[in-house]
């Protein structure tokens, strides 16, 4: 069995390669990344200036020519566009957003449904999948891949402006400790009140959807959840986060979850290892004292 993996984000490609390793042979197509050839693919192809049109054309040809048994596309903006187009062009139905894949005679996949409320386990004979980010922790192997570069056709889309966002730089997906804030923090001002805990634990700060998108206390790249980043730190410390199911879907990979919330009935207490019911503004300083 042989699979093609596509991701415009090398980090996701590394995860999928790690996840499928040993189950089948793999080639991977992604953007330039020094480490990607160390994750067990036979062939690594790098492309530049990829848009949905030139990439879908290349991928359709490449998949037909190489007769891959399976195609795994990482669920990013362009990944989902491509999966839609390729599933139509190649007449391969696509199972979206999977986070588990087993193949015996039939294929068994799992994905979240009802907005993350349930997990659907399905049997199908589909050959194309979009893969939810963070399917596992990427690990290198000894085997090195053959690397080649792809020349894509010129795209019909034109980039006319690029505006860099004010992102704080660190990728929360790589963090070992995350202090994550929710609406319960009350205001952007109050971030400085939890900063000592962040410093003490050398943590990264992240937040729920409202905090990052609606109130903009943090930049968008710090959003954790089904529609944001999926994180897998050793410790995830949720401060004033109620724990909506969409948020929980982004933190399931965490080793230990600690929640502090004044609302005893907050759903986060159903999904944490350790929870403290109470006012975070009195608990956090005490906790910092104890940690010193």
């Amino acid at each position, binding site marked *: 069995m042989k699979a093609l993996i596509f991701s415009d984000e090398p980090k996701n490609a590394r995860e999928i390669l790690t996840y499928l390793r040993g189950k089948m042979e793999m080639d991977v197509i992604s953007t330039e990344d020094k480490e990607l050839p160390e994750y067990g693919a036979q062939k690594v192809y790098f492309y530049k200036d990829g848009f*949905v049109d030139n990439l879908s054309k290349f991928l359709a040809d490449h998949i037909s020519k190489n007769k891959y048994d399976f195609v795994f596309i990482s*669920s990013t*903006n362009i990944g*989902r*566009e*491509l*999966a*839609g*187009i*390729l*599933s139509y*062009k190649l007449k391969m139905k*696509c199972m*979206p*957003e999977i986070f588990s894949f087993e193949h015996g005679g039939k294929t*068994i996949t799992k994905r979240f*449904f*009802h*907005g993350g*409320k*349930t*997990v*659907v*386990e*399905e*049997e*199908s004979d*589909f050959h194309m999948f*979009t893969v939810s980010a963070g399917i596992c922790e990427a690990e290198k192997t000894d085997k090195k891949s053959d690397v080649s570069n792809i020349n894509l056709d010129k795209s*019909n*889309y*034109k980039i*006319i*402006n*690029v*505006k*860099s*966002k004010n992102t704080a730089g660190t990728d929360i997906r790589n963090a070992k400790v995350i202090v994550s804030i929710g609406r319960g923090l009350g205001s952007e001002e109050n971030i400085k009140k939890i900063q000592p805990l962040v410093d003490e*634990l*050398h943590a990264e700060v992240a937040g729920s959807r409202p905090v990052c*998108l609606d109130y903009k206390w943090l930049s*968008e790249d710090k959003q954790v959840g089904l*529609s944001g980043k999926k994180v897998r730190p050793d*410790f995830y410390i949720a401060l004033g986060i109620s724990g909506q199911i969409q948020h929980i879907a982004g933190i399931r990979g965490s080793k230990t*979850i*600690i929640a502090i919330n004044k609302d*005893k009935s907050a759903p986060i*207490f*159903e*999904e*944490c*290892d*350790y*929870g*403290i*019911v109470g006012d975070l503004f009195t*608990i956090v300083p005490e*906790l910092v004292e*104890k*940690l010193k």
Partner: protein
Amino acid sequence: MDIAVLVKQTVDMDQIKLNDNNEPIMDNLPLKMDILSKNAVEAAVQLKEKYSGKVTGIIFGTERSTSTMKEAYAMGVDDGTVIKGYKKSDPAVTGAVLADVLKKSKFDIIILGDQSSDSYSGLLAGILSSELGLNVITNAIGIEIKDKIANVTVESENEDITVETELPAIVSVAQEINEPRLPKVMQIMAAGKKNINIIDGNPDYKDDTRIISDKAPESQRKKIIYEDGKGIDEVAKILKVVK
């Protein structure tokens, strides 16, 4: 300008309860317009207000989808079609049904929500672009139109990228594109009286997947909860390993 907006009706997922087996109870759930469909309708109506034209709403749903179409009318959609026959989340089937209807009229721009809030598939824009042979841009947070050209701003991780594309095109929108309006009572009342075109979709569902289980994931967490000022020592001890 002729604008089409694709609207999805979903069950109110916040209201889903679980049975003793941890399976969702799907009976008698209230229906509502999907979150991102609201942003799509708002984006379409804003384009009409800015560049003039007409907004056509299209729902692939059931007889019960007329309430969502009325909501779209109240927000400013001019004309609406409900395609009956929706049974399940299957982007290939939904794409084929919608493409059949979209092919019958000429639209300058087709707007939809980027990912629906039940499955987060996000495949429909790509499928429709193939079905209809149109350009596609997804996850838009801004749309500007000049003549037959659209400048669409797309958000990615570290930058906002503005891409130019010829119309007609398909554009899916992100939640950040706008704040959907709350229609006034008068608009809601007027919307109730407007005609909705209802047609049969005749979707071609294949029996190609079998659901083995559909359950709330069981939490493997320890769930040790402290109250009344307790727990700080214990949590501090656990966190000491970090240091």
